């Protein structure tokens, strides 16, 4: 029997190693797996690279991880509003920031997920975010080469899940979660609802279970009004 369910947050995060590249789902706090982040703080892995669209807007969890000195690098498109914990480390040179356009982050993750090592994009051509990168012309237009963003771990928030790891999402909580779920060696999901196998309509499954390794049921709170 295939059963990817785990009983606790601690079990879900077991084995995350120091130095891991961690994809963190969510756009702001919506779709960000709060309890898995809390679990990562408790789990203790250090020297992490966190890939997240924001730097902890709307939730204390990611700033707490920064504050504990556990993050070596943040790959991010919009680290504002900037949590003081991040800003202090950044100004002191104790945390690296790789600023990447939002769509380029998504596509670099997608590329890693689908076996594409690199791609050319028009985004950022002629800007300082393309400096030092390969530039190439196709059919008269200029593009910059971007590399796939491979990851060790993905932390995902789903709305419904079954024991095979099939997932659906809620509202704009979908955001980066489906592509991140596809791209990591170890994909860990917290789900608001755990349902029986067969309950999810195959037509409406967004993330097929093949991409998922562990699912933990967490009756997490709705995002706060904003």
């Amino acid at each position, binding site marked *: 029997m295939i059963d990817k369910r785990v009983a606790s947050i601690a079990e879900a995060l077991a084995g995350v190693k120091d130095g891991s590249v961690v994809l963190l789902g969510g*756009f*702001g*706090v*919506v779709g960000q797996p709060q309890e898995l982040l809390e679990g990562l703080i408790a789990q203790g892995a250090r020297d992490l690279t966190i890939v997240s*669209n924001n*730097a902890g*807007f*709307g939730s204390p969890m990611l700033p707490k991880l920064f504050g504990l000195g556990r993050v070596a690098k943040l790959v991010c*498109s*919009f*680290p*504002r509003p*900037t949590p003081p914990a*991040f*800003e202090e480390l*950044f*100004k002191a040179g104790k945390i690296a*920031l790789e*600023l*990447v*356009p*939002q*769509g*380029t*982050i*998504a*596509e670099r*993750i*997608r590329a890693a997920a689908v076996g594409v090592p690199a791609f050319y*994009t*028009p*985004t*950022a*051509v*002629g*800007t*300082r*975010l393309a400096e030092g990168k390969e530039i190439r012309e196709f059919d008269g237009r200029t593009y910059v080469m971007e590399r796939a963003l491979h990851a060790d771990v993905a932390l995902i928030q789903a709305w419904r899940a079954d024991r095979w790891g099939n997932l659906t*999402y*809620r*509202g*704009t*909580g*979908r*955001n*980066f*979660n*489906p*592509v991140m779920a596809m791209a990591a060696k170890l994909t860990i999901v917290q789900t608001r609802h755990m349902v029986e196998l067969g309950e999810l309509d195959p037509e409406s499954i*967004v993330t097929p279970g093949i991409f998922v390794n562990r699912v933990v049921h967490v009756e997490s709170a*709705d*995002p*706060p*009004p*904003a």
Partner: protein
Amino acid sequence: MTASVTEDVVKPWGRQEMAARLARDIPEGWYVNLGLGLPTLIPDHIPAGREVVFHSENGVLGMGPVPPKDQVDTWLVNATKQNITLVKGASLFHHADSFGMIRGGHLDLCVLGAYEVAENGDIANWATSQNDAVPAVGGAMDLSAGSKRLWVLMEHTTKDGLPRIVSRCAYPLTAACVVKRVYTNLAVIDVTERGFEVLDMAPGVTLESLQACTDAKLRMAG
């Protein structure tokens, strides 16, 4: 207001009028992404019955207005992370699809605010120096490079009266040679191969007075 513009005659467009002036030019059927700030005023000025579909880069087509406080679904937010509603016919999708729509040229229009627009269509709207403490770019570069057309909605000058429509951007670029049109509180200006061409001016504004607060050559269109 600059010294060369006579205050008793000139009536610059207000923020709502600027948004309304731009909204007038969006035809039915366009898929449109709106950036932060002034552009968010545009949907209120689309005439009733004209179907324009608003895109939010965090995965929404068919974004509706801000809900009343007692009807908020906190799982629905826009790109500025404010709660929104969905209109009938709306769809939800993930980030790679959303930016595929953008990069793939499927959006008819993107409207952004900017610090500067240059006569070759360069836009600077994400950083004000080469060494911002903690830089942030979000989706601005994707939207600028990917949309079928990019219009900019901004004040014609800085608060100190300095030109923001310029021959060459001083701030770091968001994208090169992409802006098609600029809507300001004083004028509507096309970016063409011949340079800036003025399509429309606020009441009382003359080409001379407009030129005086613009750091690039202007000519009337047509």
